[in-house]
């Protein structure tokens, strides 16, 4: 089913790409090398339809960083990265020689920060472009399996909830990784988001 029109999807993709640009700038500044971050695709799914296959996530362990945010609409934003890729990036950022098996608390904290940077950049771009104010909790880091993630969205949302799935491409000099940015929101919140996107479209069209 098409919850959002093509135009609304384009507008939201643009908002998130502005956020991705901001996040890339911040990451470049920390790492001291060029970082490219983009959001090539976005789709909206009914939470009850969620399965590992629909999420298009590969098998394996995932590093997730989530923030709950509230404002004109409420949502849980979750950033997913394949654990190994995420740690490679964090290790490159830290310049550490440790093996991936030695998952240190340092890296977890750095992982949370990486997620926080991307989430904050997306939320601040949304706030600027849609003219809204959001409040957010601190980032929470966890490791989950593909099934855990699907269950979390399907179960948590219940009927009438939606998820917004954004595909993320993160390119560093030596690494290329893909992740997902997922927003879990109720149908009321989704409607409010759509109303804000519509208002934004009205101002630019």
């Amino acid at each position, binding site marked *: 089913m098409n919850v959002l029109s093509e135009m609304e999807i384009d507008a939201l993709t643009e908002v998130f790409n502005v956020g991705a640009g901001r996040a890339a700038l*911040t990451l470049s*500044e*920390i790492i001291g090398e060029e970082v490219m971050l983009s959001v090539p695709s976005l789709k909206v799914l009914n939470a009850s339809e969620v399965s590992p296959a629909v999420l298009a996530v590969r098998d394996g362990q995932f590093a997730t960083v989530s*923030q709950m945010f509230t*404002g004109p609409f409420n949502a849980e934003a979750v950033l997913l990265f394949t654990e190994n890729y995420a740690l490679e990036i*964090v290790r490159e*950022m*830290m310049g*550490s*020689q*440790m*093996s991936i098996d*030695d998952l*240190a*608390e*340092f*890296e977890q*904290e*750095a992982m*949370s*920060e990486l997620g*926080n940077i991307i989430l*904050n950049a997306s*939320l*601040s771009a949304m*706030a600027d472009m849609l003219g809204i*104010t*959001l*409040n*957010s*909790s*601190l*980032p929470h880091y966890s490791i989950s399996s593909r099934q855990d993630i699907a269950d979390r969205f399907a179960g948590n949302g219940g009927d009438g909830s939606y998820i917004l799935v954004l595909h993320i491409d993160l390119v560093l000099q030596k690494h290329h990784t893909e992740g997902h940015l997922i927003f879990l929101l109720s149908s009321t919140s989704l409607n409010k988001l759509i109303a804000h996107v519509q208002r934004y479209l009205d101002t630019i069209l």
Partner: protein
Amino acid sequence: MSSNVSHEFSTAQVVNNVNLGLIVVAQELQVVLWNDWMSRHSGIVREQALQQNIVTLFGGQLTPGFLRGLNNALNYGLPSLLSSALHRSPLPLYVEHDGSKAASRMPQSIIMSVLHSAETGAPSCLIQVSDSSTSVKREKMLMSHSDAFKRDAITDALTGIYNRRFFDENYLLAVRHASRHRSKLSLFMIDIDYFKPYNDRYGHIQGDKTLQLVASTLRAQMRHPLDICARYGGEEFILLSPGLAEEQATGLAERLRSSIAELAIPHETSPTATHVTVSVGVQTWIPDQAGEISSLLKGVDEAMYHAKKLGRNQVVVKK
């Protein structure tokens, strides 16, 4: 009731007793809360800090990451985290003086969250600073342990040169590389002559010392970064060297033999000489010539035994 009295504390008491730096920065970047921990580690007392602009207070030393966090909190209501892994030391804070040495800059983890004014709803930024020196230390310790384990796994404990495991793994790689690139590969097997009688005569402690000396002397003959010298068995050593011509390999084998003889370690019970000697077998695999590379190891072993049969303290080149 008395229990009520004993449980009353002022917020200020709590704020000043936590083992954490607490700062609150209001909308115009002015500091409105500064706890004792901050005074202690920054050298800036509360009276100096309050109502000051935080940027000028730190004399322009704030990092871009810290400023971005402030902006996210005050202008967007978004919390931030500055991990010690990616920032190390965002604020000019110091571990307390212990009198003897100069204060060192403190590694920190910082959490910046948003407080809303009860009256106006205007956001302020609560900054929590924690000292991560202990986790930094622990991390460094883990890293050095893991390096040490890796080193131990490939080193022969007695002689300090590579062990059999390291040789076996790298020998396979070298053989594969040589056959793929059609390049030469030389192998040397070195065995100490009459080592059992030596141990019987001089004792195991002296035997160990001699093994160590022989190992370091053989290793000192290596010239190329890709050469590998390892302890292969009890008194047996093995050396791998890529890219040598046959006569160069023979020259190196002779140098290995003579370097041990020149140590002139007394060996009264040796029928060969009055000092410790070695027998050396060598073979060079040359691409497109007779002989399979897979028989190299067997070849040098035979050459070394041949050298033993011929009277020891000599080099035998396997063709």
